[in-house]
């Protein structure tokens, strides 16, 4: 857990490239065109550790459309598609 970084612009994690590191500012499920309902998507992201203040880093990306991405969330690595990662607002 680190302090939020106010000097950088907020952006969805779904747009970030490999090597990006940042801190989760908030979740915004409406932003993501996911098949899941907003509440369901948000719940799942939280259950996988994507909560405000968590440090994230994009470790790997897939071949087709740089999708999905492997994200380091504090001490674990989670694979998500960019579509769902759009709900994670980082800075």
């Amino acid at each position: 857990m680190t302090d939020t970084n106010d000097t950088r612009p907020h952006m969805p994690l779904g747009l970030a490239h490999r090597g990006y590191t940042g801190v989760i500012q908030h979740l915004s499920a409406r932003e993501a065109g996911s098949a899941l309902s907003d509440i369901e998507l948000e719940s799942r992201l939280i259950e996988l550790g994507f909560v405000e203040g968590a440090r994230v880093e994009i470790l790997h990306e897939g071949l087709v459309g740089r999708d999905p991405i492997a994200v380091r969330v504090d001490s674990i690595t989670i694979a998500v598609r960019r579509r769902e990662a759009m709900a994670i607002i980082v800075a």
Partner: protein
Amino acid sequence: MELPLLHLALVGTPNSGKTSLFNALTGSRQKVANYPGVTVERKEGFFVTPLGRQVSLVDLPGTYSLRGRSPDEEITRDFVLGKASGEAVPDLVLCVADSTNLRLTIRLLLELKRTGRPMVLVLNMFDIAARRGITVDVERLAKELGLPVVTSIAVRKGGTADLLKLTDEISARLAAEAEANSWRALSVAELRATQREADRIIADCVSLPSRPDTWTARIDGIVLHPVGGLIVLALILFVMFQAVFAWAQPLMELLNSGFDALGELVHATLPSGLLQSFLQNGVISGVGSVIVFLPQIIIIFLFILLLEDFGYMARAAFLMDRIMGGAGLHGRAFIPLLSSFACAIPGIMATRVIDNKRDRLTTILIAPLMTCSARIPVYTLIISAFIPAKDVWGFINLQGLVMFGLYATGIASALAVSFLIKFFMLRDYAPAPFMLELPDYKMPRLKSIAIGVYTRAKMFLVRAGTTIFSMMVLIWFLASFPQPPAGATEPAIDFSLAAIIGKALEPLLAPVGFNWQIAVALIPGMAAREVAVAALGTVYAIEGGKEAAEQIGQVLATKWSLATALSMLAWYIFAPQCASTLAVIRRETGSWTWMAVTFTYMLVLAYAASLVTYNVAVALGAG
């Protein structure tokens, strides 16, 4: 005083070591069944504590919360809440955590506490945590959480001693502890609050040297490389199939000659007649022709279990997600489809990891198109009898090329079917999310691999001993009765029930080039595809211990045209020739309709493919 059985349940996030702990505690005293009504595997085992208390332990499916998003997770929730039908409420819940990775488990634990069940936190993989310099203030953690905390190393001898001791202490004072359940599905705000609380507790009690597993990072650097990763995946698959086909060969030949020798022995010791023919042609050669495939089954499961235990399977799903997505498949479908190359049954059961219903259904429908090991004997037989073993373009063996073509056609048609399902049935449908933890790599453990391979091998042998055995008896009976009248000059089988049935079906199958003997062989082939080989042997009345596949092949080469042989190969790619697979589809989808859909579409594809193959081959002069 005889105390009642103590009921324990293992709960935790995926990959926290529940199954390893289960194996460590119960050893071989395990019972695998299904939960009533659903098809989630129910694994129960038994052990005795140091103080002599009898314990029943249940290994529950991994979950991150109690919300129950998939059939697996619902079981875990209902079990813990005591709502699973016919199940005792657990006296004690063992919440298993990967000590190197506590965030998600502690959050789950805070949610679990609301169920009021007596609970223990098991800090598993404590060896790895220690190696990485992670220290946990166990006492403080226990105080903060308000429940006993114990460390364990599931994969080390004696690594569960503390847990066993604690179980004894707790069981002595259990009755007083259960509290009322106050759990209900958590709102987003509550979820967030529990995660915050978990993070606070971890910050207080755990010191992390922020040194991620360097091995995992290094391996992932190669294995998850966008291009390199796919090459590695292709190499792994290549080695796997190489092993299945080349390395298994000597063992299979050994088994084969063993069964031949046994047949000869029976032939030599028994007087010729019905009993001799029954034992030699019906039982030994029939069951033998199937058991010969045991080495291949073991090798393919060995690979799958090794990759799973190592932690590679999640990576394979990651690499394949978008590529399979093009055909309308979910990344998680990769593992079930890979398993289907061994056998569609475990493959279809493995689709339970796919939480979206439609994705799961699509995967189930196409899994039987993956070339399972039961097709191998049929392919091998026909290819070696009809395809010359010459080289094309100087270095590729034609027989191998045809075999490869059969596999490739299976995969391509599976993708095509999946694409059509997506296109016609599920058009307005955004793809289900792919969210998967990529666990740290672990050295595969010999013991758990051995247990896994052993259970699969046993399942296969039991099947050979029951289904396949009874089919062979049936086929032998149909081919042997009624016996020819005295003085008849035609082969005995021409008078048999088998011939009558086969000839009745012949008009239906004549357009695809099948004769009545094939029709007869296809019927028991419904019970198990590979039986068709032995059945062909029986109907062509091969006698006298010459059941080795080459002999059947020689007979076929004289009786069938090339067009018929090719048509048979095409048939076998698609035909729904496996009653057990259909039964599993019914069970897993909970519907006769989807079973009927699978059966019908595969049959239609098989007939069409054979029809085209046969007629094209005849037109090209192979008739």
